[in-house]
């Protein structure tokens, strides 16, 4: 992929707050034995690029092992990228010295998936939320009040600040995690599966909270999730990942109503809808097999081994999928809606 991918600016024509360019993350595989030579690599993220604009929500979806969590970790430099750039307001996160990186993390915060594992069980909720303020030397005199405000802001009772994480339910813990992420007034929140550990009735409250916070504080979200229904609800734009690559990116409604890539089409059609009448009428695309190993991805298009479209192509056409990797470029189908498929075409699956 040499050409800069067609990044989109749907609602914002201004500068992106976060730009990812040709991001690659590989995990080496070593041989067993004494020498432990490097014999290969797991290509977790293979050359992805996208932009995030101020105040927007970009949904990053895909199945387990597609590299979405690795991407979110690489953005914050929690796991250094193998190559590529992550530009936050023009500065490359991957090349910053440690001291500068800490300053940058004020603007770029992460909310974790598991509200049980991501909170220290031995310190009180007040201390958990105050911790980032203290680390950055901002606690001072007003710290106590700032923490109480944050708790109120995320729908928790500030009087419960001296309680410990185990005294809260899953939804309330996730709110604590959000309050902690908001403490430094960041401008970008990376949310890694923030609601997938919660029951539906609780999940809805946390989604509403995230929407409110975005409206009030103008935050940009990178919302990583495997639940497409949640992503459709919250995201302005959606990027679909498969085996370390973005296969399709576009405005949310456009992508769900007119998906171009066969994988996106299969993914959307596989999701059950909570409406028995609609479920009975739906045609389901069932893709065969399982996701190939990222240590040894297929040549050409990575989805071709499972692709329902590939199976229908003539031998000459199919050859192209095997030898030539499709770029994530505009296919002249829909506005600002690039797809990485040689034979992309619109298919309504909802």
């Amino acid at each position: 992929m040499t050409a800069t991918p067609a990044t989109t600016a749907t609602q914002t024509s201004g500068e992106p707050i976060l730009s990812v360019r040709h991001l690659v993350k590989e995990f080496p595989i070593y041989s067993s034995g004494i020498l432990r030579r490097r014999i290969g690599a797991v290509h977790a993220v293979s050359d992805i690029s996208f932009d995030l604009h101020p105040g927007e929500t970009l949904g990053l979806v895909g199945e387990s092992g597609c590299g979405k969590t690795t991407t979110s970790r690489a953005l914050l430099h929690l796991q250094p990228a193998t190559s590529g750039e992550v530009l936050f307001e023009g500065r490359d996160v991957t090349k910053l010295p440690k001291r500068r990186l800490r300053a940058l993390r004020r603007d770029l915060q992460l909310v974790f998936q598991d509200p049980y594992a991501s909170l220290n069980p031995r310190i009180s909720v007040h201390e958990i939320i105050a911790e980032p303020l203290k680390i950055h030397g901002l606690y001072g005199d007003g710290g106590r009040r700032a923490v109480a405000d944050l708790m109120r802001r995320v729908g928790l009772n500030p009087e419960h600040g001296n309680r410990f994480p185990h005294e809260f339910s899953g939804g309330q813990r996730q709110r604590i995690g959000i309050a902690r992420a908001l403490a430094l007034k960041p401008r970008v929140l990376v949310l890694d599966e923030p609601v997938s550990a919660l029951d539906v009735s609780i999940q809805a409250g946390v989604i509403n909270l995230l929407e409110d916070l975005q409206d009030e504080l103008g935050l940009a979200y990178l919302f990583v999730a495997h639940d497409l229904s949640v992503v459709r609800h919250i995201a302005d734009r959606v990027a679909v990942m498969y085996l370390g690559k973005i296969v399709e990116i576009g405005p949310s409604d456009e992508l769900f109503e007119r998906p171009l890539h066969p994988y996106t089409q299969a993914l959307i059609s596989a999701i059950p809808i909570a409406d028995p009448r609609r479920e009975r009428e739906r045609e389901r695309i069932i893709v065969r097999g399982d996701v190939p190993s990222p240590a040894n991805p297929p040549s050409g298009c990575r989805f071709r081994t499972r692709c329902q479209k590939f199976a229908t192509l003539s031998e000459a056409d199919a050859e192209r999928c095997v030898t030539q990797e499709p770029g994530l470029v505009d296919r002249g189908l829909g506005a600002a809606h690039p797809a990485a498929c040689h034979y992309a075409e619109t298919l309504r699956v909802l």
Partner: protein
Amino acid sequence: MNGTPRFSSTPTPSSAVGQPVLAVQKLTVDFPTPDGVVQAVRGVSYQLAPGEVLGIVGESGSGKSVTSLAVMGLLPRTARVSGSVRFRGQELIGLSDKQLAAVRGRKIAMIFQDPMTSLNPVYKIGYQLAEAVLAHNDVGRDAARRRAVELLELVGIPFPEKRIDQYPHEFSGGMRQRVVIAIAMANDPDVIIADEPTTALDVTVQAQVLESLRAAQAETGAAMVLITHDLGVVAGQADRVLVMYAGKPVEIGLVDDIYHAPQMPYTLGLLGSLPRLDVRSRNRLTPIQGAPPSLMNLPPGCPFTPRCPLAQSLCEAREPDLLPVAGESHFAACHYSERLRGHPDPAELFAQTADDTHLPVEFGARRAAEAGPAPSDVATMEGALDRGDAEDGEEEIL
């Protein structure tokens, strides 16, 4: 769906026309703990007609899994089980392990959530399949092996003759779950209980497994109890749905009635809090305020009262029974379910209680008895107004 036949959509009122294959009556399960007794299941009754699919939905801790473990007699000895579970008239509660062994796997089969833990990692797939066949049939090893290959083929595993000599770790998650399904159908059971069969799987794999499950059901003609927290999966698979809350069924009915005309506020609330894939909407979701109650020392009255927008003083005093609401196949446990008739919009109903700016009720605590927002509760009032605006927003069903 997709051309595959759906099984026995004939309504099955509880005054069952034919003989039910499985009849559960007033099943309760208590777990004594040092802190008190946990009432995990507090009186579950349902009947399963031959060939029917009953979906059991509920959130974590609602007792849906414990109910099925009790049916199979798989609970630990510390559990106190009472009530009745009849399989074709034969009482299962109180049977010894030896007596139950004739039923388990042969008449009632179970599929668990995690296929890695329900398969034995040190035995080949073929051995484990043949084991299920040999346990209940007087056939030779060769016949059992032939049956094993046939079963793998039925659930859609490619190259079954080759795969049969592999170990579970050589299979992917979805493949393993299909092996578990193959084992469950090995003896042509009359009832298959599937406990969250697709929860650990990715969506495209979930679609494959659901297809295998349908194939298994078509092949055996078994009735199925499908336990899941995913309201989407149930919508596509079940004929009837049972909704559980705090260890009790709160609503049971035909799948269309439950989704399109729920008669219990909890069911309505669940549907309202679910983001929909097929709805283009910037509307807010309507969560249910608070959290499910602790099953230890439940107060009297309806356990949903602290979270319920319809709650009155009667709800705190007396727990409602599961009574017929509309037609003979639809039952709900709510004193005021008639107020839900013609009130399909959860957003409106849950508006006053669901708002986020409202301070959450303490975990497990009960809401103060006073009805209506206190005058000082400005945040709540604002929230209600916000929601009013949102309702006017666009909502387009594709």
